[in-house]
């Protein structure tokens, strides 16, 4: 128990020291997946505003996650709720697709205790300018296919993160 705590602190320290990052951890209301979003607190508009999404299979079995409506498929739907310092929500500028049935290729395999992550440029879908923003992941329903073929659904309800965009 003590060992594990040390490991957490050590990892946390490295993260903070190497780059100033804001991490939001999901509350574990489920058994299979844990989501996180993180982004450097200060970012420059000219370099793109990058946000990383990470999903971890916290279970002891391999599973398949439907990529639809998750950041893993990129901007195919409105993924984030972004509000400026006045509390005004930024409009999503990207597309939304109505699809048929998911195909094998729409699922992403995540082995036990493994994770997948993707880094997206928020400017591809939202018009952020200089200022402070609060960003959260929209609570889409994730479809998880377990090894036995059974299906589980889960939403990632994450606290929001804050970033500051410099002109």
């Amino acid at each position, binding site marked *: 128990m003590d060992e594990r705590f040390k490991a957490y602190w050590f990892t946390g320290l490295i993260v903070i020291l190497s780059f100033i990052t804001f991490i939001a951890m999901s509350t574990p209301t489920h058994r299979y997946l844990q989501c996180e979003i993180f982004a450097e607190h200060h970012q420059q508009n000219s370099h793109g505003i990058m946000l990383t999404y990470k999903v971890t299979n916290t279970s002891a079995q391999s599973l398949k996650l439907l990529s639809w409506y998750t950041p893993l498929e990129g901007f195919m739907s*409105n993924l984030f709720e972004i509000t400026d310092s006045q509390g005004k929500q930024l409009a999503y500028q990207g597309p*939304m*697709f*109505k*699809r*048929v049935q998911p195909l094998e290729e729409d699922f992403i395999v995540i082995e036990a205790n493994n994770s997948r992550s993707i880094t997206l440029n928020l400017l591809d879908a939202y018009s952020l300018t200089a200022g402070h923003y609060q960003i959260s992941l929209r609570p*889409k*329903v994730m479809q998880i296919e377990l090894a036995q073929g059974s299906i589980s659904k889960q*939403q990632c309800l994450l606290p929001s993160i804050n970033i500051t965009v410099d002109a």
Partner: protein
Amino acid sequence: MKFSSKFLLSIFATLAFSANAIKPALDVNVDVETLTNGDVNATLTITNNHKGQQKVLSWYTDLAEEHIFHITRDGVEVQYMGPHYKRPAPTENDYIKLKSGQSLTKTFELTANYDMSEAGQYDITYDVKSLHLYSNPGQLKKAERLNLASLTSNTASVYLEGLLTKGGTNKGKPDGGGSSDCIDGTCFTGRCSNSQQTEIISALAAADSIANNAVSYLNSHSASNVTTRYTTWFGNATSARFNTAKANFEAIDDAIDNQPVTFDCSCKKTYFAYVYPSQPYKVYLCRAFWNANELGTDSRAGTIIHELSHFNVVAGTDDVVYGQSGAKSLAISDPDQALNNADSHEYFAENTPNLN
């Protein structure tokens, strides 16, 4: 040695062409046929009447590649809406070889590439001009000199009655602006053929009727007396939620009746459709839309409801979950999100299977 033999060949070719004078070696014929669904097919036949082999640039035998037909409606040129490609100089592989006496026949649907929605007399001619049309260097030089590297056919004529509606549905909707390809305030981009335009108009009328039905349900009920139709798709009703549902469907119905909706037919992907929620009222239709029934679950009418609900100026819905079973679970687990889910609106409007 190599150079001189090439040179000789080229002289020989020029002589061969001159011997044939200006008489075109390729004979081009166009036939036009109107189909009952409003589409117009043109059949192009290019025949080599020359003694030797002829080569024709393949781009100029394909409407999907080039603007190969010259079309007028009552004498006025009809705009070509197909692609224009900027290409490198053609290579040998870009030419189609025709032996003496051989011909090439291809049929193209015209209304997807030319605006032929208005009534009138249409004259259709195959007409291409390019210095790269032939690969025979002799022909090319001659053509350059005479400025006539072109290939032209007879003119085929057809009278079309036009797609303009038989009156009734137009409620004074403004046009999308700029685009001339509009019928009663509904506009088309991305090369919708006449038959697609007709099917879209019909699907939009079906969407209007299911939207009206949804609105009248919501007008005749309240949060305290909702039925299984409401609770199946939107879950537990509170007066705030019920009012959101009502406002959303009123906005969807208003978009159908009064806003300049544009449909785009260029998507060839497997999706039903897509929109940019920040860009009303343009709906991109894809393959699954064309495969769907007009009414029922995941129908054309329902897809239009779904897509219109996404626009921020309409209901600003999201895709929280897809499909009927997903939407049903969401109604139970998170009614607020159900009112934010486009499919939930679609299924409520489609009402299939029928719930009271």
